[in-house]
């Protein structure tokens, strides 16, 4: 399964005084097992790009193909794309509408025309996957849930379609740290079970920790594309764009300034932990440490 964007350009309201080109000449392939992070400053076209992945927006230039077939060609059933490529919008909890959590989650599967048993089964699995309790929370109104649970309920509504690619537009925006962590673990779990993930995010730590590939957009163009290590080590360029770098990377830069040989390619917590342990064991402890600053190492 391969979703391919080929030189995709999108202009909003072409020919009017409000004409605006959101993305230009973007080529991107999403295949099985990928976990791609889309990062970029506000207004760089990330959300517009995400809406091209399942055919909600039609490119004004270029093509989007799913397994080699143009999804915008005449006669192509776009619902097939919607089933195979799930899209979770920003603040997805604003799209909840049903009387109960179960009914809301079953909206997608029902639109696919599945049997009642199949729908019930999918709702149950989707709720388990997002960590909602089928028995106690299934009959509740989605509007009674807490903010974090509302979001997970909305995401379950997309997962229940069983997409092979799941695109999420800033799934953790506005959540507290605990809910964010839980949500990211849930996404990582889906990825482990075989769903390809495309995630728009402003959180560089999440991008560094979970993704296998990072794509940086600026002013509608792809400016960097590669493994998180390749992208995040270009910290200066990222900072110039107004983007963050992962905290571990910043820590590393500070430590190296002090003369402590923290590895340059450590970008996530686990790598940092390993590197710091090695440093403390004294394996690569530098010969002379400024004495008065000896205790600052694990700031």
């Amino acid at each position: 399964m391969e979703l391919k964007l080929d030189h995709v350009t999108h202009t909003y309201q072409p020919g009017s005084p409000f004409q605006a080109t959101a993305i230009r000449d973007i080529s991107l392939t999403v295949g099985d097992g990928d976990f791609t992070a889309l990062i970029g400053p506000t207004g760089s076209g990330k959300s517009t790009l995400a809406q091209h992945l399942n055919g909600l927006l039609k490119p004004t230039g270029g093509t989007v193909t799913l397994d080699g077939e143009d999804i915008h060609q005449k006669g192509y059933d776009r619902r097939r794309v919607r089933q195979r490529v799930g899209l979770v919008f920003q603040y997805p909890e604003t799209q909840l509408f049903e009387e109960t959590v179960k009914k809301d989650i079953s909206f997608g599967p029902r639109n696919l025309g599945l049997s009642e048993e199949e729908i019930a089964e999918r709702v149950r699995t989707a709720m388990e996957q997002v960590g909602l309790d089928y028995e106690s929370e299934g009959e509740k109104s989605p509007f009674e849930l807490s903010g974090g649970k509302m979001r997970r309920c909305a995401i379950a509504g997309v997962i229940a379609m069983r997409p092979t690619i799941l695109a999420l537009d800033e799934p953790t925006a506005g959540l507290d740290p605990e809910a964010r962590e839980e949500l990211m673990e849930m996404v990582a779990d889906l990825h482990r079970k075989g769903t390809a993930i495309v995630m728009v995010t402003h959180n560089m730590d999440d991008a560094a920790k979970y993704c296998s590939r990072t794509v940086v957009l600026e002013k509608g163009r792809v400016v960097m594309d590669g493994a998180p290590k390749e992208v995040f080590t270009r910290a200066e360029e990222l900072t110039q764009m107004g983007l963050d770098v992962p905290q571990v990377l910043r820590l590393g830069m500070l430590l190296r300034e002090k003369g402590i040989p923290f590895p340059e390619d450590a970008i996530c917590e686990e790598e940092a932990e390993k590197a710091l342990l090695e440093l403390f064991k004294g394996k690569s402890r530098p010969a002379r440490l400024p004495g008065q600053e000896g205790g600052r190492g694990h700031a």
Partner: protein
Amino acid sequence: MLDNFAFGQYYPGTSVFHRMDPRMKIILLILYIAGIFCAGTLPSFAVPLLFMVFSIHMAAVPLKMVFKSLKPLRFILIFTFVLNLFFLQGERVLLDLGFARITREGLVNAVLYALRLVFLVMGSSLLTLTTAPVPLTDGLERLLSPLKAIRFPAHEMAMMMTIALRFIPTLLEETDKIMKAQSARGADFESGNLIQRAKAMVPLLVPLFVSSFRRAGELAMAMEARCYHGGEGRTRLHVLKMARRDYIALALGIVMVALTVALSRLTAGLI
């Protein structure tokens, strides 16, 4: 999905029309509407027509934008036209279908009513195209403020209109977003019979209502946080002032109505 919504949209510009006092623009619109309804014959419609053409020219707004506002009106237009065509029965029969007749009077009347509707909408959309929402409601409030003497809530009305106008684009954006989100879950808004389509609106309308109520609550809170307490004793950042161009426009407007009335009288016997 919803970007062809033109009615009530502001088209930024710096023309004379854009710079005119909004109060005068509203008065002009009223005069213009009076003109349209005074024009009782086809030839006398030439005067409001010329006035309209001249106004659009002065406003430097693309004709396409003005005509776009007519699109939602097309069914009402056809409906009025057909209704007038068959229901006003005169002397001179043009076409006899047996069950219904078309007379010359009916035809003239149908054309007149259709023209009035078209001109009415074009005139009003010219006002909203050249006037940003805030000055517009400001002007309206000032024009209505004499009615405060009889306890007419002019300020509240204007504030409600400002808020309503302000939130039209926001709501459209929201609608677009929810439509897309539900389409991503396989919802279909475009096919099916009337009942199926009405049912398909539920997943759209419920979230829209929920967010509107939430937004209203937040807005009320934000207004109170900035000490809003109604119109009493409120001063303005931009005080409206009439300039020479406004008085010239007023004179032109009055002349237009007078000419229309005169021409309508003169040509009354011709049809």
